[in-house]
């Protein structure tokens, strides 16, 4: 990329340090997401006699805060981030412990994942944990005497130990979806660090065995099992989880090629799909903007990943590359997990759709993730 080379040594305030296509793609998704959040809540709030723009306003504020955080993330040289890693990791772990304390943590949908803040705001420490783990693992696996040497067993074990603490705390909530996403990122980073293949294979096997044992021994709550069962057999629990998944599929399918038109989806306006401004935002897209609109959304995600991989390859060091891989794995698995769930490809897990779903914590985390990518890009070769 000649343009990148050209601006390689430019000043930090120059616009060229940003990957324009990445920004365009993310901005596109944020814009579409804003419309979808509005479309998914307008009629509902209006008919209840409430402010129809309530969610719209809050969503825009979340985007603005998130964008500032992203911009802030780009300002500090990512190589200096290593210094802050213990602080971020420690904050995330403390947050994750706090949510488990009754009275401090809020239980929503059977998962204790939120901390209530003054002013009606809520914080989800698991989102912060994603960033902490990605940076932490990148630091351990990249921080070696000789950068061209592959990580040793003790490096990998240290990385796993660092990830294990927050993961176990999230399992306790329980928020299986986030656990899977973080685990995917961890495995991807270990693999990309050049560690031996047996680590990747071993971790994947461990993950599979772990999920099965968790269900068998009852370590996973009945709520999680019900969600999984209704994925395998949607008629198993028609009124709750199965109902949601079926409604979700019908809503997307009924959109057809062109959709029912923005704000005109009867399924959306009738709120037949619960949580349609957060976890099920994709159903609003499916019904109202149809196959063509949804294809645009998928293409924008594709563009983000293409740019992110490009940044990854051009990263000047292993640390930057691992951060990119971590962020990509996080975004990719979360996107697949979420959209796959709405279309019946994946079991139901409560994870929001990056850049589209309403929700402060995840929006902030996603945009900080983008900030990390831009940061690596700005300092790439």
């Amino acid at each position, binding site marked *: 990329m000649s343009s990148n080379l050209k601006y390689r040594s430019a000043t930090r305030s120059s616009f060229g340090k940003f990957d324009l296509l990445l920004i365009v793609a993310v901005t596109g998704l944020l814009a579409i997401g804003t419309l979808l959040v509005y479309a998914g809540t307008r009629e509902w709030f209006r008919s209840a006699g409430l402010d129809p723009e309530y969610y719209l306003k809050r969503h825009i504020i979340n985007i603005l805060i998130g964008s500032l955080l992203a911009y802030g993330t780009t300002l500090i040289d990512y190589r200096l981030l290593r210094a802050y890693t213990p602080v971020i990791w420690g904050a995330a772990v403390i947050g994750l412990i706090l949510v488990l304390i009754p009275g401090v943590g809020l239980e929503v949908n059977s998962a204790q994942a939120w901390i209530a803040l003054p002013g009606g705001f809520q914080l989800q420490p698991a989102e912060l944990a994603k960033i902490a783990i990605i940076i932490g693992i990148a630091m351990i696996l990249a921080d070696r005497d000789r950068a061209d040497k592959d990580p040793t067993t003790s490096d990998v074990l240290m990385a796993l130990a660092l990830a294990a603490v927050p993961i176990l705390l999230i399992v306790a909530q329980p928020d299986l979806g986030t656990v899977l996403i973080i685990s995917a990122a961890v495995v991807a980073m270990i693999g*990309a660090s050049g560690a031996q293949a047996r680590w990747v294979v071993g971790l994947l096997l461990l993950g599979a065995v772990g999920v099965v044992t968790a269900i068998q021994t009852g370590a996973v709550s009945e709520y999680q099992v019900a969600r999984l069962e209704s994925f395998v057999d949607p008629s198993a629990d028609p009124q709750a989880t199965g109902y949601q998944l079926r409604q979700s599929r019908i809503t997307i399918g009924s959109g057809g090629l062109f959709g029912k038109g923005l704000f005109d989806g009867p*399924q959306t306006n009738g709120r037949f799909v619960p949580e349609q401004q957060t976890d099920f935002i994709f159903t609003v897209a*499916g019904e109202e903007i149809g*196959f063509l609109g949804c294809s645009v959304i998928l293409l924008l995600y*594709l563009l983000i990943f293409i740019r992110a991989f490009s940044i990854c390859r051009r990263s000047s060091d292993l640390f930057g590359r691992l951060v990119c891989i971590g962020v990509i*794995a996080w975004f990719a698995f979360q*996107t697949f997990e979420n959209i*796959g769930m709405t*279309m019946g490809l994946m079991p139901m897990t409560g994870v929001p759709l990056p850049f589209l779903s309403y929700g402060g914590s995840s929006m902030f985390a996603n945009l900080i993730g983008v900030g990390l990518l831009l940061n690596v890009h700005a300092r790439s070769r």
Partner: protein
Amino acid sequence: MSLRARINLIVFQTLVFSLLLALFGRLFYLQVLESDKYQDAAISIQSRDVVTPAIRGAITDINGTPMVIDLPGLVVSIDRVVIDKQEDKGVTVLSRVANLFSLQYSDVYQRTRLCGELPKDNRAGCWNGTRYQPIPLVGGASQDTALEVMENSDFYPGVEVSSVPIRSYPSLVGENVAHVLGYVGQVTDEDLKNPEVNYYRNEVVGKSGLEIEYNQFLRGVPGVRTFLVNRKEVVTKEDKNIQAIAGNHLITNIDARLQSGVEKALEAAVKRARASGYRGDSGAAVVLEIKTGRVLAMASYPTYDPSIWQKGLTVKQAEDLFSESKGVPALSRPLQGLFAPASTFKSVSVVAAAAAGYPLNASYNCPATVEIGNRTFKNFDSIAAGRIPLDLGLAISCDSLWYQISYDEWVRDGGLKPKSTANDYFFNAAKSFGVGQLTGIDLPSELKGRLPNRQWKQNWYEQNKDFYCNYKQRAKKADLSVYLIEIARENCIDGNKVRAGDAVNFSIGQGDTLVTPLRLAQMYAAIANNGTYYKPQVARAIVDVDGKVIKEFKPEVADNIKIQQSTWDFLHKSLRMVVTRGTAAGVFSGFPVAVSGKTGTAQVFGKNPNGSAKDDTSWFASYGPTNDPQYAVVMMVSQGGFGASTSGLGVRDIYATLFGVNANKVDLEKAIFPTGVPSTIAKVDLKQVAKKVDFTGVKVGGMKLK
């Protein structure tokens, strides 16, 4: 970057893009390939239909006089949306309603639940529709109770009184016609599954009689208002509003005046039988037009009030309809009652004898008894009439002359070792008259009757062989008498054979032969019409609300019996003689119109529930006027005693109504069809009902009355 790291990166990159590709593929599947399916599913989730039933067409008699018509009736219904919002979910209001209408609270509760709200094994009476439709609780409520609800709406929140079309039976000339008309009821799940008709949940459809036979014409098309609702079932907007289209009217061949007369004659005949000491449990009467097969009247006794179905059948009423002790009023005996035809069958035997070459104008011996094999067959009342002409033999209903003829023919056909070329004159004659087959009348659930020929015997044997060959183990203790054991032994050995006794019994219409009164009427119409007989037809035409004829039902020849004219002539002469000199001479004495007919008094084997032996079936099958036969009239009274005194008199009453006979004088003014059955299709005249019922300003069948 090490090589391994590089490869890992490529693998990872491929994985990420595959995930996106999988999402894209699934999206394509849901939104492009399977979109139609999901669109349908979404519509059924979002929309709720509120169905307004169409006004069902009227069923009129041959003159256009309504026999059943949709009239506005007061219906008390419950609005679930309202009562569900009450603090106690409507318990208080529903118990008030139960009180007011003297209903059980548990019934009211059950009937106002959606079927889905109740456990699967306890859904009787549940509401098939949606929460948004008023749930009808009392049909045909009285003015007083309806006013009580309307004037105290604060006391009855969620209870509505509305005027809806209710199937009503004006009975303008006192006719009942319950069995012919049939009744309507709520659609069932099976109806809803019918791929040919798009029924709606709260519709009524025909369940029996003409109502089901011509349902497609009478039904009309219900109006549908479609509302969009949200997840909380709150209506968000009205999507469609399709107006109901009234059903067409059915004009029948029934003449209400004649029908009323036939019903009264039948009831009188049954009561006469009872007064003479017979059990007289039930009866049937049929009037057919000989030259067309039109059913002019058809009555079944006991009958019931057809409006009970609409008023909401109580458990007691439902039980009574099918109760043995009440005579099973639900049964339509003209086409569902199976009885041995007895001596009325001898007309068929005449045809058989003629075919076999017996001279009809000869004399035959009519002894008191005939010995066949080791059994003695007695003449009726064991009277010896000596050697008499065959026509007189028919007139006085001699049995013993038929024993001899049929036995001789049985022997000629090979007896217990039947020839493969057996003539079977008697079986074949019966078959040509349609015994054992459906008449094809345009009413549901007709029964076939039975022709006990060699094939039937064989089938019967194969089904019962096991029972008779192991009789001592299989039979009830009470049935282990020496006589019955002997019969069982015989049945086991050669139960598949037509035995001499079977042949002999067959010739006098006894034994295993069974016919419906309708079949017998058709047989006598065939005799009167020199062998041509028609499919019995109740429907005359379908007309729309503006009177336009949509469909006309023309007479259909069912069959043509081809025998010598001399045989018909002989039968006509003999059947007239029955009325002038024979068994029916007494009951028709002085009757001013010449009619012909045949009595029948059938022995019935078996016992009544109280253990008494069953009384004889009384038959009279006839046609008239003798010289130019127009009508075939048959009456049957089960356990009614003698053919002449019970049914013969009843048939005389029917002819009196038909021809306007009063005190043995014909009064053409009073005759039903003084100039024959009208050849033009009548106009439906709903205004006749208006004279009787006040429904000012109400539209009925698309016609505004008054």
